[in-house]
């Protein structure tokens, strides 16, 4: 890498965990990543948030050297994923959407095999497997075949398999999709422990809550582009406000309620005709709920249900993609 021409690069001695510049990946006519820009410092937990088909998995697979970019650049810890793919693979650990463990082998056998494939010798592989078994509390099941594992145990083992090479960047593609709440907590605890120990982590998720629990930096992607990047507090300040939701029994009341909400909160209400529901951002926080209920009572409008709730991922996306002018999409 020539240091002479990299004017934009900061003077920091350690290269960025991830640096994507105009990253583009196509599958035939479909553009999965469309000029993605993203930078994350070393040791961070980066959550990539987005709907299905946004390009999350494509991004992870490109970082993991499984896909070749069609355009732009992608560097992992300073190394180019195309020219230096072999070196990148020594720095990363991948746990994909499915638990890629061999069901016919025991947990320990799986870990030792992966450790050997990372380049460990026999004894080092045994030590690495034992360390991971302890770290992820897999001791009681370590010598049972994985076909007998629960979904959560399998995921934890899969996570463990990505750790036996002591990667500097851990890639987790939807690590908790399909897990029950208890197993989800277990995976979260494991990820937090790794982050605390200094491992950089890139994870994709559908869940705001998951990003909330784990990430230092959140990147929201849609149609293969980063539409928002920032810390959680920055993201929350912009789109994370609560939503007041009013449902009515009589569809004829939808418009009067929407008008009232608009008048009283000066925010833009959103109508859901089918569910006979109107939602509006609670600009003044949850306290605004009491105010809205009072106004509805004053107007003698009969409602079915009034409540306040967290915004859905869907609403976050709409806020980011529609409500802001294109020039102000960056949250930083």
């Amino acid at each position, binding site marked *: 890498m020539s240091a002479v021409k990299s004017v934009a690069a900061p003077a920091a001695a350690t290269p960025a965990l991830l640096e994507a510049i105009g990253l583009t990946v196509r599958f035939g006519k479909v553009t999965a990543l469309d000029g993605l820009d993203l930078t994350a410092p070393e040791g961070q937990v980066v959550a990539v948030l987005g709907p299905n088909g946004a390009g999350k998995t494509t991004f992870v697979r490109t970082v993991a050297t499984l896909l070749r970019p069609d355009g732009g650049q992608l560097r992992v810890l300073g190394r180019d994923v195309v020219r230096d793919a072999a070196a990148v693979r*020594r720095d990363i650990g991948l746990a994909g959407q499915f638990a*890629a463990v061999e069901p*016919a082998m025991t947990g320990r056998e799986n870990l030792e095999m992966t450790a050997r494939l990372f380049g460990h010798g026999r004894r080092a592989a045994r030590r690495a497997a034992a360390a991971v078994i302890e*770290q*992820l509390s897999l001791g009681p099941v370590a010598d049972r075949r994985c076909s007998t594992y629960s979904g959560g145990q399998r995921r934890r083992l899969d996570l463990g398999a990505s750790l036996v090479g*002591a990667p500097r960047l851990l890639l987790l593609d939807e690590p908790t999709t399909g897990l029950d709440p208890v197993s989800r907590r277990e995976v979260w605890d494991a990820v937090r*422990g790794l982050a605390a120990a200094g491992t950089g982590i890139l994870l994709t998720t559908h869940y705001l809550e998951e990003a909330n629990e784990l990430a230092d930096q959140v990147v929201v992607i849609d149609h293969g582009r980063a539409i928002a990047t920032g810390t959680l507090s920055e993201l929350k300040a912009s789109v994370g406000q609560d939503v007041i939701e009013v449902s009515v029994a009589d569809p004829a009341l939808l418009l009067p309620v929407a008008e009232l909400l608009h008048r009283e909160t000066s925010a833009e209400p959103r109508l859901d005709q089918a569910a006979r529901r109107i939602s509006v951002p609670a600009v003044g926080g949850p306290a605004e709920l009491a105010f809205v209920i009072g106004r509805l009572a004053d107007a003698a409008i009969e409602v079915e249900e009034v409540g306040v709730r967290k915004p859905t991922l869907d609403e976050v996306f709409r806020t980011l993609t529609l409500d802001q002018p294109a020039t102000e999409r960056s949250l930083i």
Partner: protein
Amino acid sequence: MSMTQTISRPVHAPAAGTAALQVARRALLKYIRTPGLSVMSIVQAGMFLFSFRYVFGGAIHAGSLSYVDYLVPAYVATIVLFTGGGIAVAVAEDKVAGFTDRLLSLPVPRLSLVLGRTLADSTTNAWSILTTAALGFAFGFRLTGSAADALAALGLCLVYGVVFTVVFIVMGLFAPNAQAAQGMSLIAFVFAFISSAYVPATSMPGWLQPFSKYQPITPMVDAVRSLIAGSGNDVGLALAWSGLLLVVFTPIAVLRYRRAR
């Protein structure tokens, strides 16, 4: 979570041989530990030999040889075409289940993935070949030539086992899922049946005979028969076909593994 033990970072990527052995070990353990897999090939071979020996065999005229002596060497030579579907399925399953992604994300030489798979599946093929040969004797096959010639014939069948392993690996890599891999592997049946393996090619209609004559299975089968008869005709041609198939399919497998999906 306790972090009492830290894991060291490996100093080097694994050597190609070490990585291939790890890949092979896992595939073999899966084969051995999955109930029924190793027995299935024996059951299949038994049913096939029974049908051809006792059901169709009486209607097939195999020249000077008794039909069982005509059939068994050919069936041992072609058994891997019938059991090889399992290889394609296993490769496709690994791809769909994310196992191949995991392997490809590791600093493993790409050739090791094909080598390891080939090593493991050639071993399971060898198991099929040896058990089928034993079954052949049970169904009444008897050697006419020397034991040394028979061993040479068996060795040639084991070579075919390696060759077709690579062919089925390629099928599995191109198949989008396990079902498709199973379907694609049926193409091997076409080559097995439209050959001199189970009926003399001369008994087929004239328009079919060129295909039968010039496709690789016929010389491969003829070479095994000729070794058992003590002449060794066609062995050169059979080895040439084996070499050609390996030279064509191995790079395809390596390149295809590289791309994964």
